[in-house]
């Protein structure tokens, strides 16, 4: 009897141990999945949230909850927060990182750059060797239109760490251009080209900046010519560079015409005013009478 009581007690203890808990969580997750697939995402959400409250330190519901929140309920910020919590419990989990990256990328283009930036910041901490997260953070911040100084710093940090990362140069240049700082932008393009001399797109953009923003026609011409030298014929780059050279020449001529016209108008203005001065002197002479201040008594 005593032995049977001990066995029975041991069996009861086994039934309420870690394995039982594991079954409960798995069952709940399975139920939530069924609800989601049956078209009841809210029900699935309730199930998972209830599960999370009951087992706050269990990471297993979080990926499904995050997926549900993002894909079915269109709540990317909440999804990202769940993934953040999950990844702190299960650092380096590939599924969680991939899903968070997906959210970060998609929200950048769907009018939620603030969510993208938040996700990218988390990803930068968790995967510091992945430069794409830093760039995405910069792009999201730029989309938000805030704190361009931090965006510039982030880009510079990426460039310092990854000197060949052309996208970081482009992002930095874009920030400078958005601030109207074209000299700085041109310097960035030059740095990019020193790392990637064959980058035709950068070379042509540089040429356009010289032409239209800095009005440095000589530098623009050099840039277009260097692009022509390395571009294959009948490509976009070749045509653009050829067109660019024509535009440089046209702008040079226009600039000279404007300068000549301005000089002509200045001379014309002086000449006209001189004519009027001479006319006034003549009229003064022709209409000479006793001056008003010399008038006799009234």
């Amino acid at each position, binding site marked *: 009897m005593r032995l049977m009581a001990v066995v029975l007690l041991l069996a009861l203890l086994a039934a309420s141990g870690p394995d039982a808990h594991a079954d409960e969580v798995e069952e709940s997750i399975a139920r939530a999945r069924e609800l989601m697939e049956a078209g009841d995402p809210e029900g699935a959400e309730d199930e998972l949230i209830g599960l999370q409250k009951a087992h706050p330190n269990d990471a297993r519901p979080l990926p499904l909850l995050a997926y549900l929140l993002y894909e079915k309920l269109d709540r990317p910020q909440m999804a990202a927060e769940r993934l953040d919590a999950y990844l702190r419990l299960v650092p380096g989990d590939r599924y969680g990182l991939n899903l968070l990256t997906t959210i970060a990328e998609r929200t950048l283009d769907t009018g939620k750059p603030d969510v993208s930036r938040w996700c990218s910041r988390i990803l930068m901490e968790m995967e510091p060797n992945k430069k794409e997260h830093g760039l995405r953070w910069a792009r999201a911040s730029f989309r938000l239109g805030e704190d361009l100084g931090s965006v510039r710093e982030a880009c510079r940090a990426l460039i310092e760490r990854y000197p060949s990362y052309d996208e970081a140069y482009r992002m930095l240049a874009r920030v400078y251009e958005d601030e*109207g700082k074209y000299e700085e932008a041109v310097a960035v393009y030059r740095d990019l080209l020193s790392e990637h001399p064959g980058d035709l797109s950068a070379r042509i953009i540089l040429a356009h900046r010289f032409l239209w923003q800095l009005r440095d026609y000589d530098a623009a011409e050099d840039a277009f010519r260097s692009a022509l030298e390395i571009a294959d014929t009948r490509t976009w780059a070749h045509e653009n560079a050829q067109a660019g050279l024509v535009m440089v020449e046209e702008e040079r001529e226009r*600039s000279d015409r*404007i300068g000549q016209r301005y000089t002509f*108008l200045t001379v*014309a203005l002086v000449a006209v005013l001189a004519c009027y001065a001479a006319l006034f002197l003549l009229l003064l002479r022709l209409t000479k009478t006793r001056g008003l201040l010399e008038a006799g008594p009234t």
Partner: protein
Amino acid sequence: MDRARSRAVRSYLIATTFLSGFSVMVLEMAAFRAVAPYFGASTYTWTNVIGVILGALSAGYFFGGRLADKHPRAVVLYGVILVGGLLCLITPLVVKPVALLLLPPELGLEGAVEPVYRASLVATLILFAPPVLVLGAVSPFAIKLLATPDRVGGASGHVFAASTVGSIVGTFLTTLTLLPWLGTRLTIGLAGGTLMATAVVGFAICALSRRTAGVGFGGAAAAVLLLLATGAAGPIKDDPGQLAEVESAYQYLRVVDRVVDRPGRAGGTVRMLQINEAEQAYQSVEVKGSALTGGRYYDYYSVLPLLIDRDKLDVLVIGLAGGTIPAQLRHFYPQGLHVTGVEIDPAVLDLGRRYFSLRDSSWLTQKVADGRVFLKTSPKRPDYDLVIIDAFAQEYYIPFHLATKETFAEIRDRLRPGGIVALNAAAYRPDSPLLSALVGTVREAFDRVYRVPVDGYPNYMIFAMKDADPDFSRLLALPTRGPEDWEQLRRLAKYVGNSAAAARPAVDGLVLSDDRSPVERLIDADVRRESRALLGRAR
């Protein structure tokens, strides 16, 4: 001293000052319209015209008084008026050659801005200062002839009153009747003819002699000839591709076909509706054989409906012009589209119907009205999915009252949730003060404002969505379709999706309001900066 003593003579002298005042104001009002097609209608041009005319009047008063003291005879006064009338009659015939000599076209907008200021000043000095200077002599001369030692004050009062009343009549008549009916050149000719007739009658009444009769007859003949020449004068502007020109109550308009063969631009024949000097700008564009306009800012508006989640599209366009925007929207989104277009100048709509795709149709409602008045008087209901402000005064100024926070608040009330307001701003750089001001102003009514640079043109499209954030992914993955114009739209949509960024106003940026909206100053600052950069490069 030859003093006019008879009542008739004295009455005619008063009438003379009335007619002189009338003619001076007609000349001043018409002067601005006469130079606008060549130098624009900016505040700088206005300043030059008014400044020069006031200066010429001052000189005329000064010398007129001296002349009157030296030769106080009515025959001299009417001789002066005859000369003034002749100069007036000659002016319309020489405006065009003088203007083109000073500022030939094709310097481009930013290239012309700095020279325009000087050119309009020189032109006004050459064209309008001489007749006004001469006419300025009339009032002091009339006072001299009318005054008696004990009634100088009374004589002065009569002369100034008559002259000013004449100026008032000239002001209203010119704006309301003469310019719309006769056009600018004949209006100036009318002022000259009035003066000539005044002089001839004056000779007859006040100083009839064989000599004055001869001079009067000669003057009358010259006036008739010059008026005929003015009436027969060719177009105000002539370009090889010019199809029409109109002087409306608001501005000088013309329709011109240009063959675009510029590297980096979509080529072909481009039909443009232009106003005033039109160095580079246009109010409507159609590219032959294409639904789009070769990458100009109009095309960017056609991308915006892709961001709006609706089966049907109700659009309000303020600044309908020749109908470029509705035509594009109709081409790409014909199902469920209705456009309400508001245009202040009926002459523009007329040109749109005759030379562009503007048609009376069930899907397009055309309203002749000021855009702001339309907003104020139309029902305050969220009736629209898309509101586009494409109104411009002169060549490139957004009308100041259409760019205020109050305006955007009114527009917001008319947008449905998820609806978009969009406008185009001329700006050469993203740090343009105008852009910053517009962004800050739109943000007063909308949470987030986006800005897209128009590739290859000095424009930015600014837009904002009501109560939602735009889903740019809709623009980035459009399916490829067969027709070329849809392909172009797809590429443009991708560009917009990648380029749109939330815009920030400057830290101390100006918010435009009904009380203070210095749009012209902001635009001029940007264009002049670019112009000075060009000039600096040239020197």
